[in-house]
């Protein structure tokens, strides 16, 4: 099924993978900076780090055009950065400051950057699935050649919109790729304990959406599979990608995740997707110093973003009354 450049072995497309390695490091360090800020009560709302899942975001979004569309979930920082959003604007959004991607009005769970086709994270699990189907529906009605990628978690497959949205995409033959990030958990619950049947891919196929199952921690297979599926999607067939991964942090930055053994987490750290790419690039002959330098740069960039966000002003109070709706006085009857 994978197509395009063969990448393992000698003729690896080095630049492509160095760029993706950098992208993954930037997401990792963005999350680390955000967690630090949350611990310090500089980021006040809940944040859901995507540490350990970077290969999915980067591998999929790396095959998208700027004018393609993605929708994400509460765990949306990685997808948003991978689609090209500005890290500082995102950090400011998490800090609730002026110049945030949504002017500080949405925060982490509603992170969005319409400039780069990122139509929003969502605070309601699975709600983005129907919205994404509709975005693809509009693309088809307008006769455009964009595609939509809809990211969601393994817990989202137990909500009605999973059935309604996939059926919709199948009935109307929409240009959409559904990407299920199976990290094994729905908050503090092991998803499989609350899921009947053979899981996301089996459900998708029963709804007429062909599915591929891959190791979501293997950047190469995410990259190649996504590229192949997106080719089909751009030709007008909805497809489904199940990426198996693992949530290395707690559900939120404040969740100690005491419900799973430390040993399990330690084992999973051995399968850190960023280290895996690093190894591939080392094998391909990139000096580790260069790779470490890329990681250090990413870290420095996000620390700067943290400091800059911290030093940024709050939004203008008047913004509270902006962008509600064009008519009607929102102050009416209030005070």
């Amino acid at each position, binding site marked *: 099924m994978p197509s395009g450049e063969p990448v393992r072995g000698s003729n690896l497309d080095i630049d492509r993978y160095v760029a993706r390695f950098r992208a993954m490091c930037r997401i990792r360090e963005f999350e680390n900076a955000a967690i630090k800020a949350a611990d310090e009560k500089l980021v006040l709302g809940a944040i859901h780090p995507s540490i350990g899942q970077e290969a999915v975001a980067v591998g999929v979004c790396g095959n998208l055009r700027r004018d393609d569309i993605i929708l994400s979930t509460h765990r949306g920082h990685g997808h948003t950065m991978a689609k090209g959003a500005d890290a500082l604007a995102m950090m400011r959004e998490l800090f609730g400051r002026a110049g945030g991607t*949504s002017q500080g*009005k949405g925060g982490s769970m509603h992170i969005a950057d319409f400039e780069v086709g990122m139509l929003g994270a969502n605070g309601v699990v699975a709600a983005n699935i*129907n919205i994404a189907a*509709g975005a693809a529906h509009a693309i088809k009605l307008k006769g455009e050649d964009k595609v939509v990628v809809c990211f969601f978690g393994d817990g989202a497959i137990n909500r009605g919109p999973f059935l*309604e949205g996939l059926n*919709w995409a199948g009935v109307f033959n929409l240009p959409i790729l559904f990407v299920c990030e199976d990290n094994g958990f729905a908050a503090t619950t092991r998803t499989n304990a609350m899921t009947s049947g053979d899981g996301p891919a089996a459900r998708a196929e029963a709804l007429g959406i062909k599915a591929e199952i891959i190791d979501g921690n293997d950047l190469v297979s995410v990259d190649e599979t996504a590229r192949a599926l997106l080719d089909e999607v751009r030709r007008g067939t909805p497809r489904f990608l199940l990426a198996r991964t693992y949530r290395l942090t707690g559900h939120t930055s404040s969740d100690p995740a005491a419900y799973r053994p430390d040993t399990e987490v330690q084992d999973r750290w051995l399968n850190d997707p960023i280290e895996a790419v690093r190894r591939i690039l080392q094998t391909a002959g990139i000096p580790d110093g260069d790779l470490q330098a890329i990681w250090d740069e990413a870290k420095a960039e996000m620390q700067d973003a943290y400091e800059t966000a911290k030093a940024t002003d709050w939004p203008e109070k008047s913004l509270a009354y902006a962008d509600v709706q064009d008519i009607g006085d929102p102050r009416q009857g209030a005070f």
Partner: protein
Amino acid sequence: MAVLSYIEAARLALAEEMRRDPMVWAVGEDLGRGGVFGQYKGLIDEFGADRISDAPISESCIMGAAVGAAMMGTRPIVEMRFSDFALCAVDELVNQAAKARYMFGGQTRVPLVVREPIGMWRSSAAQHSQSLEAWYAHIPGLVVAVPSTPADNRALLKAAIRCDDPVVFMEHKNLWPLEGEVPDNDEVGTFGKARTVREGSDLTIVTWSACVHTAAQAAETLANEGIETDLIDLRTLWPWDREAVFHSVGRTGRLLVAQEAVSVAGFGAEIAATVAEHMHGALKAPVRRLGAPRIPISYAPVLEDEVRVTKDAIAAAARKMVNDR
């Protein structure tokens, strides 16, 4: 001026707006065959199945997909069939459509029209008869339209389709066959502008949707008794025409609100409370509400009628307010 029925006026508005703007499309169950009440009859022939689109029985996806399609620059009209079924799509309407523009800091707009036929329709029982307009008026980000005449149905539906924010458009099922004059010009309604149905100096009756006609009959009865009613049809509940109501109550000194919906926490409470807050000094009598008791709607006609706000109930309440001088 042509005479059209309420349902024909809506069809006309839809056809006119779909001709004007290729981004306008409608989606819902059975639309290809004209929709459950015939609100879309014939439109598929002119606009095709992509723009008069059938849908699976998937209310939450009909609504949710429309949100995504609206954010991508199209102007969807979703048909909920009965407003009661829109309760299967509340997250999509309230958490998503109503909040997207704000939550994303103005990066996007959701030009969406949600058609929700409301109200009692002989023996439709508890799950096909509700009037929940007060709910949507309570939600920031939503416009709420409740037209009572063919002319308003056309003009307000056109305004809803042209609105860049989500509009909950509530047509009353009992009004589909109602006929009335509709201007030949391409009039587009204005949200928040009430209509004075008749003028009078003794009391103000504020109402909307089908109840406007019940109130008009009551006003007729009252007129024969020498009680002159200033009858106001709000047309939209958000925004609602506070100034028109204040102006009228300023002249009459009496406010009676009549609504088909359950009175408790109904929109009538908002109107009565607002007038009581701002016009206390001008009131010659206490403000007064009429609405349905807090019971589900029954199937049997005799029981269904128990929740109706009748012409007689309105006239009696008005009489009492005017005579208790």
